[in-house]
């Protein structure tokens, strides 16, 4: 029942296929020429859906901690070079879901996950997959800005590269490029050696985004990236998301429905660990198909 909504909405002509037309930088173009069939379903009905340009796909994903099951079978595609928003009331499993997308879920003691999460068609929950390598391809931005306090602004940007023992041809150029990408360069270019902690909250969050961009990930997961920021800083980060989506696939968890409406191409509504509705953002917010979705976005619960 949960996963039927997206299937019903548009197996062939909906947003899912339309979005293939969206611009993407040639360097990152990994799309196939022909639509490939993919199962976005689990127990009950086996429906084949043609989803083109899905960068990641969760298939019947169950996850939780110890005996508690937080995600009760989520099937959801994450479209390439698009912004996917995940909304839903607290405790519905939004964060758990995106933390499963880069194997960060398992960092917490007693955490478990079952099902499949495909990344470029490879199951990252499968045996023999190195979570460290997954996380280099699927970066993450957290709720509270978390720059490394012992490092300067410059070193924060280079942190991933250095800690992973990779080489940068030109560190200075790299730092400038990443800070420009997040529109922070002009604000900090004279203070690159100062601590990342000396910045304001919004600047810190952009620094954290720059830090994850430096790893050149394909996907960026954002777990309520603006909930600790004021409206002005929030607007900057949202602008940034707009800029980034030509090059990156973005999944953003948010409590703020206006934010989802502003930044996302597609939106998924979670409730109690299940996916209630999934579709392009416009229809979710203007013509929700499920009663629960409508209740939630109109503020009747949650």
């Amino acid at each position, binding site marked *: 029942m949960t996963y039927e909504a997206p299937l019903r909405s548009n197996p062939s002509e909906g947003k899912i296929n339309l979005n293939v037309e969206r611009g993407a930088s040639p360097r990152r173009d990994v799309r196939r020429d022909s639509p490939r069939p993919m199962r976005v379903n689990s127990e009950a009905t086996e429906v084949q859906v043609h989803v083109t340009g899905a960068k990641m796909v969760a298939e019947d994903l169950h996850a939780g901690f110890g005996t508690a099951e937080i995600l009760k079978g989520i099937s959801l595609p994450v479209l390439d070079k698009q912004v996917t928003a995940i909304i839903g009331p607290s405790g519905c499993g939004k964060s758990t879901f995106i933390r499963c997308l880069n194997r960060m879920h398992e960092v917490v003691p007693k955490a478990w996950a079952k099902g499949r999460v495909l990344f470029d068609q490879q199951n990252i929950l499968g045996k023999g997959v190195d979570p460290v390598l997954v996380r280099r391809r699927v970066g993450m931005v957290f709720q509270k800005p978390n720059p490394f*306090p012992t490092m300067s602004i410059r070193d924060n940007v280079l942190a991933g590269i250095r800690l992973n023992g990779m080489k940068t041809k030109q560190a200075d150029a790299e730092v400038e490029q990443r800070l420009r990408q997040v529109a922070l360069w002009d604000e900090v270019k004279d203070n690159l050696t100062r601590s990342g902690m000396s910045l304001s909250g919004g600047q810190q969050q952009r620094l954290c985004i720059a830090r994850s961009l430096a790893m050149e990930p394909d996907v960026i997961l954002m777990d309520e990236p603006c909930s600790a920021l004021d409206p002005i800083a929030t607007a900057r980060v949202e602008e940034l998301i707009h800029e980034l989506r030509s090059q990156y696939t973005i999944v953003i968890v948010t409590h703020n429905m206006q934010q989802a409406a502003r930044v996302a191409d597609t939106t998924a509504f979670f409730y109690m660990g299940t996916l209630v509705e999934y579709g392009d953002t416009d229809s979710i917010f203007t013509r929700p198909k499920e009663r629960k979705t409508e209740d939630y976005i109109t503020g009747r619960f949650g």
Partner: protein
Amino acid sequence: MIASPYRYQLRNYTDRIVRGACVVALILAIIPLGLVLYYVTAHGIGGIDLNFFTKLPTPVGENGGGMANAISGTLELVALASLFGIPPGILAGIYLSEYGDKTFGRLVRFSADVMSGIPSITIGLFVYALIVMRVKHFSAIAGAVALAIIMLPTVTRTTEELLRLVPDALREAALGLGVPRYKTTLRIVLRTALPGIATGIMLAIARVAGETAPLLFTAFSNRFWSSSVNEPTASLPVQIYTYAVSPYEDWHRQAWAAAFVLVAIVLILNLSARVLVRNKVR
């Protein structure tokens, strides 16, 4: 309703009284520290001369001489003890903080707490039985082992506590960048907690630098230079003890001077460690 001058004033008075009591308690706590430093400096500084740092002790009853061997002996003992005690302590602390939530971790933590309560003379006896009785002679090694055992629980627990203070957000930030866990622990978590850990370790060093009891039957003492770590070794605390209970005026003078030097050594170690690990970015 809003005007209730009596209650407001009462609260103000209570505030002043309690605050005053805190200040008095603070002064009472600082007085011994101040007096110790004052006495050690006042009595000790007069006994300091070049001979004190360069000469060996004179034969019993003879004036002059110095404590060159005891000063170098103490430095040697502390260095060896740090070598034996700090690395395992830090590693155990990392284990307890990052992996130690299971039964084994609790067991280790409990043992460390029990260990830190064991009287140091008991540890001296233990090392005496363990090493000295086997090799049949006192040695700097035995003394350093005893001091290391005393340091171990302090270093372990300090490291653990300070690593726990590092927010999980930083661990996640590093893991989220695809940094392996061991590197996250060493380069981010340990690095962030380093200034605090260094301070804790310095306290542990300061404590063992002044230990006398465990050295009495491990490193023992030596009136001459010891040529290797396998020989009995002089140390400032033991020398202070010997000289202070002696009947000779000049030895009393030297005991005070030794106490002053001991305090100075601890202070210098402490300050230099702080400067070394201080966070460079502001």
